[in-house]
């Protein structure tokens, strides 16, 4: 046992320093020089002040803004300091009740819109911080936002298109609309 102790302790200390201190420091150092914005949280500035991260969604309830995915974080939605999904099972009555109440809220904000609600707009995301909605979910809300801002529907659709990305390299993931950027663009158009 004693012959094992010295190699065990010294190798453990050595590899800990290498993988637990040197390696993260090296990655941080290179990242700070080569891509400081990406490694620093992809912040979005307005008037010189950070108003959010391009990767983290925000909560919107005002009719003049596009709304993002429902968020299950606590105690408030889109709490970036406590990411979480709902973890509701498919048969859980609480899931059906939550989706129903979200549909009712969407309908109440836009009574003339009788189209079915796209699924991503009424189900909670995995992180609770999803920055995107599907193009269908954006289109569903276009009329409401146009009315609230006294804009033409075409102007709003134009902004949606400008803030939509397709699949990465054409094959990975899904097409998506960036909610925060879209809302910033709307604010820039009609403050």
């Amino acid at each position, binding site marked *: 046992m004693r012959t*094992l102790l010295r190699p*065990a*302790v*010294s*190798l453990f200390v050595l*590899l*800990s320093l290498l*993988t637990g201190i040197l*390696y*993260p420091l*090296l*990655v*941080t150092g290179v*990242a700070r020089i080569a*891509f400081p914005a990406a*490694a620093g*949280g992809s912040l979005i500035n307005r008037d010189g002040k*950070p108003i*959010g991260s391009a*990767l983290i969604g*925000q*909560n*919107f*309830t*005002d009719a003049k803004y596009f709304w993002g995915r429902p968020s299950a974080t606590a*105690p408030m939605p*889109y*709490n970036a*300091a*406590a*990411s*979480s*999904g709902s*973890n509701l*099972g*498919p*048969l859980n009555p609480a*899931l*059906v009740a939550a989706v*129903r109440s979200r549909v009712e809220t969407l309908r109440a904000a836009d009574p003339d819109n*009788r189209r*079915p609600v*796209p*699924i*991503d707009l009424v*189900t909670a995301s*995995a*992180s609770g*911080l999803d920055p*995107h909605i*599907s*193009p*269908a*979910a954006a289109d569903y809300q276009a009329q409401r936002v146009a009315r609230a801002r006294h804009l033409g529907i075409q102007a709003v659709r134009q902004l949606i298109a400008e803030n939509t990305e397709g699949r*990465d390299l054409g*094959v*990975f*993931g*899904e097409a998506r609309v960036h909610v925060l950027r879209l809302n*910033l663009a709307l604010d820039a158009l009609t403050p």
Partner: protein
Amino acid sequence: MNSHAWLLLGLYMTVLLLVVRPLGLHIARVMTMDDQATPVSGFEGAVFRVCGIRRNAEMGWLNYALAVLLFNALGLVAVYALQRLQFWLPLNPQEMANVSPGSAFNTAVSFVTNTNWQGYDGESTMSYLVQMLGLTVQNFLSAATGIAVAIALVRGFARHSASGIGNAWVDLFRVTVWILLPLSLLFALFLASQGVLQNFAAYQEVTTLEATRHGNAKLDTDGRPLEDDPGHAVAEPATAPTQTLPMGPVASQVAIKMLGTNGGGFFNANSAHPFENPTPLVNFLQMLSIFLIPGALCLAFGRLVGDERQGWTLFAAMALLFVAFAMAAIVFEQQGNPRLAQIRVGETASVSTTALTDGNMEGKETRFGIADSALFATITTAASCGAVNAMHDSFTPLGGAVPLVLMQLGEVVFGGVGSGLYGMLVFAVLAVFIAGLMIGRTPEYLGKKIEAHEMKMTCLAILATPLLVLIGTAIAVMTEAGRAGIANPGAHGFSEVLYALSSAANNNGSAFAGLSANTPFYNGLLTVAMCFGRFAVIIPVLAMAGSLAAKQRVAVTAGTLPTHGPLFVALLIGVVLLVGLLNYVPALALGPLAEHLALWSAR
């Protein structure tokens, strides 16, 4: 499956096939380096002298096992101590409090055993120092342990009439420094360039576009939540004008979390968190990095036993099982949730489940959609990674059964780094044994007679985890403390418990995360499952390596069962499925199967 899903799966398998052989050959080369005076051996020599390691001192299996256990015990102590002392240690800008003893011990065992079960919320519990020097280090060292043990078993087959199976210190060092570290460095830099955080800044508070109105639990003068009716907390309206963005050295940890099939995220939401997995392209490479080393190890095995066909045979069995399960998961998740399609507000159907991102979107991210999430879930549980980019608890019953069953098969469909290979080799030994019984010959594998001792070790290694899972689940559902953690009603609640035990005992680490597992009961139960699930397999495997290395090699004759080619692939898949199904079908019937029937029958 839609065309996007087919394309994604096809592309994934193609890229995997292209990269595993070069890496496998590199691994084989690194693990058999001799004392030639290369620059590398000069550096190694200096390290080994300082550490008191004699490079050529072969270890018998018992010494090898003791070395591995001792090395892991040191890791356990270090991770536990760092968590318990983090408040007084540096690199803690959020002033995180010391972690409670039960949770700290659970996490320490979890990271040492390559499980990386997260009973804690990363962003609100762990200081940057613990994430780096505690958790990241064990991401490396538990992965190195798995690979070292696998290589030792391979040496058992490759050698004959030998007393040793290698030197554990040399193996652990070489795996960490020449395999895991260079790959992690490259991958971490790529991740950081794509938006994964890598800094030591304090959390950043930003003023959001719209203030968030929400209910806050009202507290009494003692700081306890007030209740009006029993059980109903009183909420008072509150407004949050800001959002707190977490920061930290994330990319360096996420890289090895994927490459080492560890899976413990920096954040609670793991690879669903946009700061851990910002784009679908990153997601694809994270999926690839999970299978990279387990796949390459099959080829390293083939090279080391001098017959690459043997390696491709294991790879083919794993790949076929994987593709079948991946297709199942994608299909079930794309079917969506019929209960939501039935919701009526007014006259017409109110929820479209056939929009662009059709299917079951609860607990999934928009950028990944259904296919990239279901594929990730299959990969992360086929390998014993356990990172998640979607909440498995909200999967459809059969979509969620895919990850569950993959763990229960013993994590051999690529499996953990090292543990997948030694697990599959144990199944291969069982397969030749069963075939030997059928054709009436002494079973042989790779020129080694499989005898009573090997079969005893095989049975121990194969039966340890099902016993832990089934007995553990039974204890949990029969006790008040176990049932208290269940979040979802009905059969799904049982699935949550079964999933937790399957994940812990097979060292996966993913969860049906609704289960409240950060309690004394689950911290204790899962710690036992993780610990025995890891070392009650490693020790028989090393014992088998020792006895195999000592054996003579028998000559190949016309009566030898070939252990390469389609016939053996089929036999191997058959044995893996047979053992898995015999162990788990009753439990699966009570959980996902019952839930599936309930979901689709009652209207």
